[in-house]
């Protein structure tokens, strides 16, 4: 076995499990806290992600309250937020801090760490047939760097000058000069430090995923027999490894500009509040945007690809049909991964970017719609003439496809620079990326949680709560974000604290109330899920069968509560691809079953 040579530690575990059947007793600390078992680390990522999602979601409830009721005061808000909501009204600088933290937390901590951290960790070893990651030690560090990043970010909420409030994109000079806004003081330094820790965490995780997928597949598991989940996690990791360092460099230069008097991003600035002209000249604020979006755009796909992979797997399993066009699915993931690096400046069409250069970014951006369209049509063909079981996971996977279509199509508007001149930084953009990247990826993540929860905890989630969660959430998601396309087309800018002074935008007051109510209901529904999650860990219906969904992939060949090392005996050998559902009249054929002599070819 190749992993024996690569990693003596894994070999040792495998040896133990193979010959003695059970592992030696671990202490609480090494089993649950500084664990090196990929399954435990994935749970750590997931639970930390859930905590952050609640915090990030709650922030959105607060700022939605402000948008719906700009002229009312809520005393309970002051009880909860103290001087940030004096008199029961959120202050503008805190409103912007909420918006900033909502974005940062959900994009990075929930949909990057919580999504790919959870499922890459859980599924890569289990689905490729490995005992653990290439380096369990680095894997553990990956989580703990994320935890450190979390602690630093959380601490920034409690400092005197408040958390960073310059938007999750942190454009200088606003983020570079403390006098520009209270949130640009210590809050930014903590934000950057936290993000730097997060980048370290991502890189440790990503390198591990890549090494594991490339080197530690079990016998017979060629790359083209990998489930699409693994392909998606693999490309996700590659995207992260190549783009996070660029973001990191952007942040370091920002830190220099802030604290060491350099002028990478600063030029010809006069500070209004202190009435002083800064000495910095010759820097470019636009340089930061290039560095930021060089990660920022791949980041969108870092968030989306795992959801695509899991949706593919879950749709195929529950439609009891092979995924349609496996190679086209892999090919389109690959195309998306490549194109993800070549489109970053479409976030910068109105920065004064050279229009000729902009033209290439238009072309490449709209090109991404082709692999995306292939994926959608392949999913549709996968459910066509299937025999569909609507588990909560399947519903969320189908909901993902619906949202991906809705949000993906509006990307065709924004990617076209001529239209972007009008739509840039309006609510149209908010609607677009929340649907396609936010809610859709959340749906992919929920699908994954519902589908693999039995593998993680040996128990089921409650189905009825799952159905309530799904139907409520998809209705709320559309009610919240669909009308925002219209407000965007009215030119309504994002990140405004109050629209009532504007002749052009004040007509949407009632609509904002509707959206806010839907957002609050949606938040409550997520609490139903959170309750279901934690309750079911301890009290859920127990799993009685190893393979509850009738799945072909390797993770379902492990015992219900697998120990460190995953398989008690030898790692099974793989003989076929992962999607033999409904073949030759058989319900499904697991990957471990050798190809029969009379089996039809495809």
């Amino acid at each position: 076995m190749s992993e024996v040579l690569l990693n003596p530690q894994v070999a040792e575990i495998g040896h133990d499990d193979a010959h003695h059947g059970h592992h030696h007793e671990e202490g609480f600390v090494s089993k649950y806290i500084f664990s090196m078992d990929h399954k435990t680390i994935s749970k750590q990522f997931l639970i930390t992600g859930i905590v952050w999602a609640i915090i990030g979601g709650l922030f959105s409830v607060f700022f939605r309250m402000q948008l719906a009721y700009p002229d009312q005061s809520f005393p309970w808000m002051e009880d909860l937020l103290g001087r940030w909501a004096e008199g029961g009204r959120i202050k503008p600088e805190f409103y912007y801090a909420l918006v900033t933290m909502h974005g940062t937390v959900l994009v990075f901590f929930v949909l990057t760490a919580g999504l790919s951290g959870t499922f890459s960790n859980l599924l890569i070893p289990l689905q490729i047939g490995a005992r653990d990651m290439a380096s369990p030690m680095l894997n553990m560090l990956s989580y703990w760097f994320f935890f450190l990043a979390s602690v630093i970010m959380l601490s920034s909420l409690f400092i005197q000058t408040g958390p960073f409030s310059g938007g999750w994109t942190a454009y200088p000079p606003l983020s570079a000069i403390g006098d520009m806004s209270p949130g640009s003081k210590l809050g930014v330094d903590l934000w950057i430090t936290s993000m730097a820790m997060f980048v370290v965490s991502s890189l440790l995780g990503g390198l591990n995923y890549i090494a594991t997928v490339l080197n530690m597949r079990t016998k017979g598991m060629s790359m083209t027999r990998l489930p699409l989940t693994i392909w998606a996690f693999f490309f996700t990791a590659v995207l992260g490894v190549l783009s996070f360092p660029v973001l990191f460099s952007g942040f370091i230069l920002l830190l220099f500009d802030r604290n060491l008097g350099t002028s990478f991003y600063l030029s010809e600035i006069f500070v209004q509040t202190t009435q002083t002209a800064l000495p910095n000249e010759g820097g470019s604020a636009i340089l930061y945007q290039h560095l930021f979006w060089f990660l920022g755009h791949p980041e969108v796909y870092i968030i989306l690809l795992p959801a695509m992979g899991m949706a593919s797997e879950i749709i195929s399993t529950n439609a009891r049909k092979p995924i349609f066009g496996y190679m086209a699915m892999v090919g389109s993931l690959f195309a998306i991964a490549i194109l993800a690096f070549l489109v970053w400046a479409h976030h910068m069409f109105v920065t004064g970017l050279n229009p000729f250069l902009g033209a290439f970014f238009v072309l490449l951006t709209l090109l991404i719609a082709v692999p995306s369209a292939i994926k959608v049509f392949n999913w549709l063909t996968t459910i066509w003439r299937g025999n569909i079981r609507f588990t909560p996971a399947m519903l969320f996977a189908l909901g993902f496809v619906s949202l991906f279509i809705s949000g993906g199509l509006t990307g065709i508007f924004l990617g076209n620079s001529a239209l972007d001149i009008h739509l840039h930084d309006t609510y149209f953009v908010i609607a677009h990326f929340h649907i396609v990247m936010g809610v859709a990826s959340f749906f992919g993540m929920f699908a994954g949680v519902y589908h693999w929860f039995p593998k993680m905890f040996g128990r089921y989630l409650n189905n009825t709560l799952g159905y309530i969660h799904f139907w409520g959430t998809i209705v709320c998601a559309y009610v919240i974000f669909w009308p925002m396309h219209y407000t965007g087309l009215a030119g309504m800018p994002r990140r405004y604290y109050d629209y009532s002074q504007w002749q052009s935008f004040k007509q949407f007051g009632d609509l904002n109330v509707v959206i806010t109510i839907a957002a609050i209901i949606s938040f409550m529904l997520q609490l139903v899920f959170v309750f279901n999650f934690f309750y079911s860990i301890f009290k859920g219906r127990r799993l009685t069968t190893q393979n509850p969904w009738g799945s072909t992939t390797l993770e379902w060949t492990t015992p219900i509560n697998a120990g460190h090392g995953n398989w008690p005996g030898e790692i099974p050998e793989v003989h076929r691809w992962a999607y033999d559902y409904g073949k030759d009249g058989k319900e499904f054929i697991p990957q471990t079953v050798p190809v029969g002599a009379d089996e039809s070819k495809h």
Partner: protein
Amino acid sequence: MNIWLLLLVIAMIFLVIFQIAKASEYVSVLKGEKKAREQSNRVNAFLMLAFLVLGLAGAYWCNELLAKETLFAQGSASIEGEKIDSMFMLTLYITGIVFILTQILLFWFSFKYQEKEGRKAYFFPHSTKLELIWTIIPAITLTVLVVFGLRHWFKITGDAPKDSMLVEITGQQFGWQYRYPGVDGVLGKKKYTLINSGNTLGQDWADKANHDDLSPTVMYLVKGKPVKLVINSKDVIHDVGLPHFRLKMDAVPGIPTTLWFTPKWTTEEMRERTGNPEFEYEIVCDQLCGASHYAMRGVIKVVSQAEFDVEMAKLKPTYFVAFPDKDPSNAKPATVAADSTKAATAAVVAPVKAKI
């Protein structure tokens, strides 16, 4: 304690939902897993169909309600923006068809192919023909959109017409300042280190071109006359958002940007068109710039050439405000008032020579 009551109610609702969920799980265990699954499968399949129908109806209703509130209802207020509107409609038709088609297929297939006793899923792993079809058709469609889009893009971002008037707009926390080149048609030099309370743009008074530059508090534009905006920022990145004209451009400190367009209707005409007697062309800051970002409002008055000349004539060059002793109208109050009016009027008619 209103909030506690509310929380109590919410907690009760949670509890009820939880009890129902728990009970239904027991029932399904009693009934047998297969039977329970069949039942919930039928319910969910029906809900898929219901969601499709209600969703499409909801989208239509939303459109009826909100389409008239968007800017498309009033048409573009700039000639260049018309192209953006037509581009938008083309994209909307194409994506609209795809949207309706794919959503119908998704939810209809889900409903139609729900698990049924005796049904076998069709083993259909790939089809090169189908895959080619849905690679090539989107590729062609997108090519069309790219070609149209880029044609408009190059036109809009291209050089401003020679006869454009020139206006400088400068963003700062949290407001806009405007500057017109005056009689000579040239905007005077400025330097950010010269900024002080009496010279808010940092104009270099040694440059004579500055002496006639005018700074009104509202941006006046002339109907039908192209205008080129030179956009600056004094501190952080702002953005000159002109939703009615369908345009926007960032204001970046240290890097001037430009934007040009031709207003189609005067403010008065827009008040009639929109039926809103308080209508204004608003300049919207579209780039988060600090705590009062949401209040960074500017106003553009589009007027006829005659009205424009009158408004400009009322203004006194900033130079004279900064140095009242240099102002000829202060030296000989009686006669020069008329003179300076004449001079300012001349400024307006003078062709724009400045090239920034």
